[in-house]
């Protein structure tokens, strides 16, 4: 099985190398057959990569410990779902997943563009093909998932890391990889547009949907990871500014900036150079994020051990940046703006400020991640950049960004007059001021960032509500009908705009959840004997003894805690310590227990330790208000992204008509 798997990966490397070379020749010679052949090679490579994945999954499920990754990351008692997801627990397996997603994306792009973008596609395929060659080389030569076990094959494996034995293992890494990898497509289109001098609107439409998909996948991946951290890792939080968490956030911030600034290019013909820089930066940050995870240079729960993959990724990143910079400088004359910024009080200016804030935030995060590495390289001493550094900038950049989220949709293009500003913003401003005052009276003034964030959330929510209400009212004035019908028509005819507003609503929910849980939470820790109680955030937790349960590869020892509030019992929690029975070395994990209530308050309990000689346990408890809004924000985010990504048949028809009229040979 290992031999066949290795042979498949070698075939993939050959196919993607052919695809890259053939597509370059197809672009130079304008040879349609050669281009189709290159496209077929990409699709054949995808089929072979999927076959390799299937083979490795079979090896995992059948406990074929003659393959090193199976031995190192599974055991005979590991439940089958975790056997399947352990494919991406290892460095080589996760590289195979990267390659699968990349060849899949390349195949989908080939199929989507069979009859359009013919001048661009050879170069798109060449750039994506170049990325495929790199990752196929790594999976074949440097870090093969089919590498054999050295020496005698043991009867059982070493088991899977306890923190990876969670259902989120099935969703979090694949969602992140979909995001990281898919950013290669917009980058490839941008480079192809520069090479062919086809900087017209069609490539922007193709790029926009792929960028939205990549950006949405990365956002969902991060939220899934945050929820996983919240329910599994057992420190009571959901985001620790871990370097590898930051590695996903940075391209997401750059992608957010691009999605806004590309609207300025479409409407006003401005920021063309800036958009190429952003698309390149987003893809480069994805590669950098991959480097951080795989090189082993950072201490992180996400990192793999040090390997030669790291230096190879740095070389690849350097090539990507050099290639993009060369093309951009060469084609600079093509990217002159059609218009100038006429007023700082305009939607263009708002988007520009938004971009500057997003990129400044990405840069400070990048500095926070890179500084310890640079410090170690230069001085031999690894410094640390801790959570307060990131939280300071989250507030410093996040609050103005939140304000702009409300301003941008309501302000006019080109120039807004003072009269129109007051007319447009008076109700959101009044609502925010009144809401903030009321919240302060209710006792939430103890945290000024929290109070400011809530006030701005009211501002943004009112602006979104006004946009939907006014838009539906205008729609009814034209077409008649009911309010629900008008709303559906409004969204259907303006998917990007109103899908974007739904995403903004998700941001509001996210900010409320983060601000409330961060600024207004409670924590307590106590050693308890049976019958003793502790107080936290208005709740009483009474320790009522231990219980033990056995799973397929573990034994849980849990503390029974009776939860009461206002004198009434509201629930029971069982925070536990899990001892894994399939690891040769004693391996434990914390299994927290969380109570969610209808007010959006989480009571979060952790069994920190137990002392049988004293018959006591150490319990850490947190009360986290509104954390569930963060997870709700994820669902709203997916809805908004789906509305925005959904193809608009009218736009597609208009583009096809324009291009068939202008270029009869192209259609």
């Amino acid at each position, binding site marked *: 099985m290992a031999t*066949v798997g290795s*042979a*498949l990966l070698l*075939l993939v490397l050959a*196919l993607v190398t*052919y695809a890259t070379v053939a597509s370059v020749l197809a672009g130079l010679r*304008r*040879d*349609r*057959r*050669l*281009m*189709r*052949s290159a496209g*077929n*090679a990409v*699709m*054949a490579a995808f089929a*072979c990569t999927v*076959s390799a994945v299937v083979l490795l999954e079979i090896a995992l499920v059948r406990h074929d410990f003659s393959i090193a990754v199976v031995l190192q990351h599974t055991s005979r008692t590991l439940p089958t779902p975790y056997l399947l997801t352990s494919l991406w627990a290892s460095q080589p397996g996760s590289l195979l997943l990267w390659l699968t997603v990349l060849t899949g994306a390349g195949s989908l792009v080939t199929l989507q563009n069979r009859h359009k973008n*013919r*001048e661009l596609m050879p170069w798109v395929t060449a750039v994506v093909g170049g990325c495929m060659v790199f990752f196929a080389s790594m999976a074949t030569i440097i870090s093969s998932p089919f590498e054999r076990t050295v020496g005698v094959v043991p009867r059982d494996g070493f088991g899977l890391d306890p923190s990876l034995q969670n259902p989120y293992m099935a969703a979090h890494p694949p969602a992140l990889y979909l995001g990281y990898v898919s950013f290669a497509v917009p980058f490839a289109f941008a480079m192809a547009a520069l090479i062919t*001098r086809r900087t*017209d*609107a069609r490539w922007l439409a193709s790029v926009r949907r792929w960028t939205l998909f990549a950006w949405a996948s990365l956002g969902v991946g991060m939220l899934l990871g945050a929820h996983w951290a919240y329910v599994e890792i057992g420190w009571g939080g959901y985001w620790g500014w871990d370097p590898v968490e930051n590695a996903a956030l940075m391209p997401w911030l750059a992608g957010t900036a691009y999605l806004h600034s590309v609207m300025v290019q*479409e*409407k006003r*013909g401005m920021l063309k150079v800036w958009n190429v820089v952003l698309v390149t930066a987003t893809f480069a940050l994805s590669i950098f994020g991959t480097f951080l995870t795989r090189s082993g240079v950072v201490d992180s729960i996400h990192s793999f051990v040090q390997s030669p993959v790291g230096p190879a990724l740095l070389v690849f990143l350097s090539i990507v940046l050099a290639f993009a910079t060369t093309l951009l400088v060469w084609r600079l004359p093509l990217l002159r703006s059609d218009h100038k910024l006429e007023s700082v009080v305009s939607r263009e200016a708002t988007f520009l400020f938004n971009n500057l804030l997003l990129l400044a935030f990405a840069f400070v995060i990048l500095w926070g991640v890179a500084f310890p590495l640079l410090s170690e390289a230069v001085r031999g001493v690894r410094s640390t950049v801790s959570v307060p550094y990131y939280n300071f900038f989250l507030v410093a950049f996040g609050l103005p960004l939140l304000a702009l989220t409300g301003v941008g949709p*309501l*302000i*006019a*293009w*080109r*120039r*807004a*007059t003072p*009269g*129109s500003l007051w*007319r*447009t913003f008076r109700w959101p401003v009044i609502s925010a001021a009144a809401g903030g005052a009321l919240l302060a009276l209710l006792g939430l003034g103890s945290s000024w960032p929290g109070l400011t964030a809530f006030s701005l959330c009211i501002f943004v929510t009112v602006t979104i509500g006004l*946009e939907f209400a*006014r*838009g539906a*009212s*205008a729609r009814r*004035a034209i077409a008649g009908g009911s309010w629900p019908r008008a709303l559906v028509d409004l969204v259907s005819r*303006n998917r990007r705009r109103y899908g974007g507003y739904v995403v903004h609503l998700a941001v509001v929910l996210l900010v409320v959840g983060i601000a409330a849980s961060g600024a207004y939470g409670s924590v307590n820790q106590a050693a308890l004997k049976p019958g003793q109680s502790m107080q936290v955030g208005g709740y009483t937790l009474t320790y009522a003894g231990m219980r033990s349960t056995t799973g397929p590869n573990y034994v849980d020892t849990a503390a029974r805690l009776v939860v009461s509030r206002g004198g009434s019992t509201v629930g029971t929690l069982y925070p536990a310590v899990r001892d894994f029975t399939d690891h040769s070395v004693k391996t434990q994990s914390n299994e927290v227990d969380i109570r969610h209530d209808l007010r959006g308050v989480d009571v979060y309990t952790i069994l920190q330790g137990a002392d049988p000689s004293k018959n006591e346990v150490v319990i850490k408890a947190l009360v986290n208000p509104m954390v569930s809004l963060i997870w709700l924000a994820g669902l709203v985010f997916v809805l908004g992204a789906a509305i925005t990504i959904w193809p608009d048949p009218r736009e597609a028809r*208009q583009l096809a008509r*324009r*291009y068939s*009229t*202008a*270029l009869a*040979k*192209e259609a």
Partner: protein
Amino acid sequence: MAVIVAIAVVAVAWPFLSPERGAPEQALSPRDRNRLDLMERRDAAYAGLRDLEQDHRTGKISDEDYQSERRRLRAEAAGALRALDTLDSEPDTSSPEE
């Protein structure tokens, strides 16, 4: 494994073995690029007018600003249409770009 390799080779070679479908690939002439640019300017002006209409109906801009911006966008669209008419009425002497 030999079967898989054979299938891959056939897939890659198929475009050279099957009859050519459609016209041969041709390059874009400068005239084509010019026409495309003008059509995009025209369509961007139309899209701008639609957005302007929406913004005016939802109260984001005053009547005065609406009239001023509407005149500007209609002039842009008209300019693009005139340029397209001029382009189409001229004989095509350009050749595909290398």
